[in-house]
Each structure stands twice: as structure tokens, then as C-alpha cells.
């Protein structure tokens, strides 16, 4: 019985999306400008993805690629939106941006009233600001630990459950393999550059050690505590031992570069690296698998930073009708399914996790449901418009510790003071 209901709901939503899509072309053929970061094959895949919409509506979509760094994307978007530019119709936005950019986007609550309930409620909630649904989720993201099956098997190791295990296993395999002549092999690669990605990584270490979420949902600053210090100290010990010194300038793509050329035992990365790692030009094709990130310091729940991307319609667009139709198309079940099949992006529509076709083509996706259960949000909701500054202060403190400039205890204490100043009487 529930299956039939679900099927019907899906079908009616698809019909509504199609109707919205089909009503547009009668007006005129518009050229829609869609701006998005470019990681891996994202741009090529997007062109294929929007083909059906272009054919159905007669509109065309021009994608405006942005740098891979989300911090850079945000700066550019903020500038464009503050200037009220009509050049860009749709923005692909990070899950944390909604509170900061809400004023510039069209309220989609009414338009998506059939579509929104199919998504994970927590994700819809993250994109709702003051009762306005400002962006529609198109895929979600949660990182996991990638490991080399072949190397672990060869050295009789199992995928690590704790960071301490990971450190030991990585060191052991790295030493053994280097002794056999693989001088370039490293134990663990992750994202240590001073940018938003380091905030994600460091939040995972701290939360998985049981050290809180930097700023708690109620606005309390919790970052300066024993467990957080222990977590950052553990990581500082990796730089130059199991991780290359250059990891402090790595973003996602640099880490994937080392990993995909077969030079790392473990990697922390988002799901996009799974499909790419199994591509024909990959040196690790078929040799790896993923597990949830480890835990640490005797704590038993792991943590994965909730990422994910959404699409928002600019208030300043002169082609809002076509733009919203494309937004609904991208957020719909059918497109999300195709995205999952080709790119391994995680759907935000709950029912797709039970989809047989997806399970067959991308076996990791159903398993990612477990990762989701342990997802932690970045403190963008409690810190509101100051999130970027909070995040920058946080990643700077961590980066400075990892560079060996001063200890975690000192840096986190200073960070607490800075955040306290910034908070003032309330966020």
C-alpha cells in the first residue's frame, strides 16, 4: 500500500514539474544563465543533465563555471547579488549560504509545495529562512573515508573504526610500501588548505572526538574544550608523517590527484570522487571502497559534515518563469536519479535511496544513508550572517596549529575569545 501511494505522489509531482516546464515555451525561447562551481566532470555532466529540459521547453541553458573553491564562489555571488545583476538567473548554492543570501532569492515555497515534502525535511529546513524557501536541494553531500582494498588486504589490515587505528594502519602500510620502493605513497590525504573545506574536515575531527560543533545550535561557543584540543593535536601529528606536508594547501581536487594516481592509502572526500575514481583513466579503478569516517578519543559516534548543493532563483532575473521551471526540474526526482546514476551524487529525495536501479549502478548510495545519520551541520544556522567570519577564524586557528606555529590549546583559547567578541550580546 505505501508503495502505491509513494508512486502516485512521485508521478503527480513529476506531472506538475512537466506542466510547469511545458507552460513556459509558449512565451519565448530564453537563454538561462546558470552559475556553478566546477569540480571533476560537473560541467560536462550538467550539459547532459539539462538536455531534456531544453528540449521540452525550447529554452537554452548556458553554464557559467566558477572556481572549485566554495569560498571563492561565495565572494563572487555576493558581489553580483549586491550589485543586483540580472545576468545570472540561477545560482547553485552551498547548503550553508541560505541565511546569508536569502534576501536576494525568490521565495519558492508556493512553487515547490508538491516537491518539497519529498525531500529530507532537515535539508528543506536548512534552506528555509524566515519562512521563505530560498533554494531547492539538488543533491546532498557527506564525506566518507576512502580506502584501498588491495593495500589493506595485502598488509592484513581492516578498515579503521577509530582515528587511532587509521594512524597506525596508514603508518604501517606507508612504511612497508615505501620499503618496497613506492617512495611516493602516503598514508592519508585530506583537505588542509585554509578555506571552507578545512572547516568541514576539522568539524569532523572535533565532533567525532565528542568535542561539539564549534558553535552549538543554541548559539553557545563550545570550541575550546579538552576533546577538541585532543582532536586537533592528533591531526597535527599526521602532517609530515602519514600525510604529506603539502596537505596544508590541498583542496578536494589536490587530494583526489594524489589518491587517484594510486599514491594514498586513505582519503577523506565527498561522494563525487567515487565515480571518478572508478573511471577508465584512474589508477585505483576497482581497488577501493568507502566506510564512514572514524571516531576518536574513545567517543563512539563518527561525524560527517553535511554538505550539499541547492539551486536558487535570483530576484533580479528577468526570466524568472523559465528559471524557476529549471530549478524545479533540477530538484525533481527524475533529474536527481539521473544525477545519482551518472555522477554518484547523493539524492535529497528520500525514496531514491530505495531505488533498485540506483542501488545496482551506484552501490554506495544506499549505504550512504548510514553516513547521513551521523551528519553534523556546520554552525551556519546559529551564527547567521557572521558564519563566514566564524568559519574563517576557525579554519585559520586550525591551519595555524597544523602548520606548527602554536599549540591547539593556545589557538582554540584565542579562537574562543575572538568568537565571543564577534558574538557580542547575540549572533
Amino acid at each position, binding site marked *: 500500500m505505501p508503495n502505491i501511494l509513494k508512486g502516485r505522489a512521485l508521478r503527480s509531482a513529476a506531472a506538475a514539474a512537466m506542466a510547469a516546464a511545458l507552460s513556459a515555451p509558449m512565451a519565448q525561447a530564453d537563454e538561462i544563465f546558470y552559475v556553478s562551481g566546477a569540480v571533476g566532470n560537473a560541467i560536462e555532466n550538467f550539459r547532459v543533465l539539462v538536455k531534456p529540459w531544453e528540449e521540452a521547453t525550447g529554452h537554452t541553458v548556458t553554464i557559467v563555471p566558477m572556481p572549485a573553491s566554495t569560498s571563492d564562489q561565495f565572494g563572487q555571488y555576493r558581489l553580483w547579488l549586491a550589485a543586483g545583476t540580472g545576468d545570472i538567473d540561477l545560482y547553485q548554492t552551498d547548503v550553508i549560504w541560505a541565511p546569508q543570501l536569502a534576501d536576494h532569492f525568490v521565495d519558492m515555497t508556493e512553487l515547490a509545495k508538491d516537491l518539497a515534502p519529498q525531500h529530507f525535511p532537515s535539508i528543506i529546513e536548512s534552506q528555509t529562512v524566515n519562512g521563505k524557501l530560498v533554494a531547492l536541494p539538488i543533491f546532498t553531500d557527506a564525506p566518507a573515508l576512502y580506502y584501498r582494498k588491495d593495500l589493506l588486504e595485502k598488509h592484513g589490515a581492516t578498515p579503521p573504526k577509530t582515528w587511532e587505528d587509521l594512524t597506525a594502519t596508514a603508518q604501517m602500510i606507508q612504511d612497508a610500501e615505501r620499503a618496497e620502493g613506492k617512495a611516493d605513497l602516503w598514508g592519508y590525504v585530506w583537505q588542509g588548505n*585554509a578555506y571552507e573545506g578545512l572547516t568541514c574536515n576539522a568539524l569532523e575531527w572535533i565532533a567525532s572526538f565528542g568535542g561539539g560543533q564549534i558553535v552549538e545550535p543554541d548559539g553557545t561557543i563550545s570550541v575550546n574544550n579538552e576533546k577538541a584540543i585532543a582532536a586537533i593535536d592528533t591531526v597535527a601529528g599526521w602532517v609530515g608523517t602519514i600525510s604529506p606536508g*603539502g596537505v596544508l594547501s590541498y583542496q578536494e581536487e589536490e587530494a583526489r590527484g594524489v589518491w587517484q594516481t594510486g599514491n594514498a592509502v586513505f582519503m577523506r572526500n565527498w561522494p563525487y570522487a567515487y565515480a571518478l575514481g572508478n573511471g577508465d583513466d584512474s589508477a585505483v579503478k576497482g581497488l577501493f571502497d568507502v566506510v564512514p569516517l572514524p571516531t576518536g578519543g574513545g567517543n563512539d559516534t563518527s561525524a560527517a559534515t553535511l554538505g550539499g548543493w541547492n539551486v536558487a532563483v535570483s530576484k533580479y532575473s528577468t526570466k524568472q518563469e523559465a528559471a524557476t521551471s529549471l530549478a524545479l526540474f533540477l530538484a525533481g526526482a527524475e533529474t536527481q536519479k539521473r544525477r545519482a546514476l551518472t555522477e554518484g551524487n547523493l539524492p535529497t529525495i528520500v525514496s531514491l535511496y530505495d531505488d533498485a536501479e540506483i542501488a545496482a549502478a551506484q552501490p554506495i548510495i544506499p549505504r550512504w544513508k548510514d553516513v547521513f545519520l551521523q551528519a553534523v551541520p556546520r554552525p551556519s544556522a546559529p551564527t547567521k550572517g557572521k558564519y563566514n567570519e566564524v568559519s574563517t577564524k576557525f579554519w585559520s586557528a586550525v591551519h595555524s596549529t597544523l602548520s606548527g606555529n602554536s599549540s591547539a590549546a593556545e589557538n582554540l583559547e584565542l579562537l574562543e575569545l575572538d568568537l565571543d567578541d564577534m558574538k557580542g550580546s547575540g549572533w
Partner: protein
Amino acid sequence: MPNPDHGPSLQQQRARSAFWFLAPMLIALFCVAAWPLLRTIWFSFTDTTLSNLYGGKWIGFDNYLSIRTLESGRVIYRGTLVDPAWWNAVWNTVRFSVLSVTIETVLGLMVALVLNAEFKGRGLVRAAILIPWAIPTIVSAKMWAWMLNDQFGILNDIMLRLGLITEKIAWTASTETAMTAVLIVDVWKTTPFMALLCLAGLQMIPRDIYEAARVDGIHPVKVFFKVTLPLVRPALMVAVIFRMLDALRIFDLIYVLTPNSAATKTMSIISRENLIDFDKFAYGSAQSTLLFAIIAIFVSLYIWLGKVDLSGGGK
């Protein structure tokens, strides 16, 4: 014969037509240089944010320095002038500028002396040496970022094979080498520019002076210090000013090449971060204004101390 009683004199007429010829340029300069500058200075005295560009209120010097006394009697200082991150950026910028401009001047002069000599294919070499200068900074920064990459960068590979280093260096990541990496790329990029300006100066020196020196049997090194250097000095001083102005506001190279860490953050980078990323538009404007002031002071000091003649007139 000019009649002073009827109509303007020829001199006045010329001045008037000159004014009309200059007017378009003055208007353009006002629109693209003076107006944005004045507006930035105005913003720095308000509480403007990027989401509300026209609604800022006048708050005086609070963005620069505000002193408040708490009820407990504690005095709190706030503002850019007491922000350690700002002073760190100032120090980074000054260090970068002095080092890069010094190295570039010395190398540029050396390259110019070579190019000033007569040899076959000189025109070709002169054109070729300009290539690094012609490549857009973003492109060269990205290109060098890959060459300096710790794992698959060619620089580490070459040095490792030659036995100069024993393990791969994380050039841009490590705080000790990040600034060195920036300097390497900047010197590579800008030395041609310095060389070109020096070459222009060298070509102004009359050849017969050198001939006279040769006839007198003066050692070439002495000729360089006693003849070439004093005569090329005016051109060199102007070249250094140009480079200094450029170096003090460096942004693109560092932004692309190195992680956004305190080791290499410059004044331009930190003010952009406040302007855009943190939505502290007024605070960022205050830093931009200070950046402008610092550059102005630097250049005036330099002109005054170096007695540089920018009017192009006498010696």
C-alpha cells in the same frame, strides 16, 4: 600684431583649447579613479554593509579605532588600527614589496645590460624575454602552483633528481616557504618589466662616454659604477616607483598561489575578505583607505628621499 584690448591673446587661446582637449581625459579620470576613491573613503566612516549599500550611517572613526570604557572600568579598543590581523598583513606586504622589488631591480638591471650589448638576434631575445610579463597573472600563478605542487610538481622532481633536496618540499603549504614561493613567481614574472625600463634608460646614455672611458683604459666594473649607474639612475628610480606601487597592492598572485593563511595574507587580500566574504563593507573600506594612505606615504617618502624628478624636466 596682437591687440591686448580685443579678445584673448594667443597664449590664452592656446590654454583654453588645451583645456578642452584635456577635458575628456579629466572627466574619465574623475569617474574611474577619483570618484571610487572618495566613495571608499566615505564608506570607511559609515556602517555600510554589502546587503545595504546606500543605507550606511555616519559613525566617524569607529572603523579605524574606537575606545569604549566598560562599566567594570575595562577599556576596550576596537578597529583596524588595533587589529593584529591587519598589522600582520601590513608586515607581509611590506616584506614582500621590499624583497621583490630589490631582487627584481638587481636582476632587471643585469638583464638590461646584457640586452644593451650588440649581438646577433638581439631583437628576438628582447621580445622573448617579455613573455612572462605578457602572461596574465592568474594563468602564471596557476601554472606555477602546479609546478610547485609538492607531489607531482616538476620543481621538486628536478631538485630531487639533482640531489639538491632529500625530500619533497611543500612549497606553497608550509608557512616557511610560502613567501619564498610567491617571491620566486613574482621575480620570474616582473623582472622582464624592470629590464625593459632599465634598458630604455641605458639607451639614453651617449655611446661616446663609453668610448672615452675605453680610450682612457678604465676597468669595465669602474665604468659601470662611475658612468652607467649614475646616468641610468633617474630611469631606475622611476622604474622602482612603478614596481613599488604595484607590489604594495599585490593581490592576484598570492590569492591564487598560496592557501589563505596568515603567512602570506596581504593588505589587499585582507580588505577584500572583509569587504566581500565577511560583509563588513565599511571595515574593509577603512582598510582600503589605509592601504591607499600607506602607499601614498611610501611613494612620497621615496620621491623626497631619492629626489626623484617626475616632471621630466632638467637634471
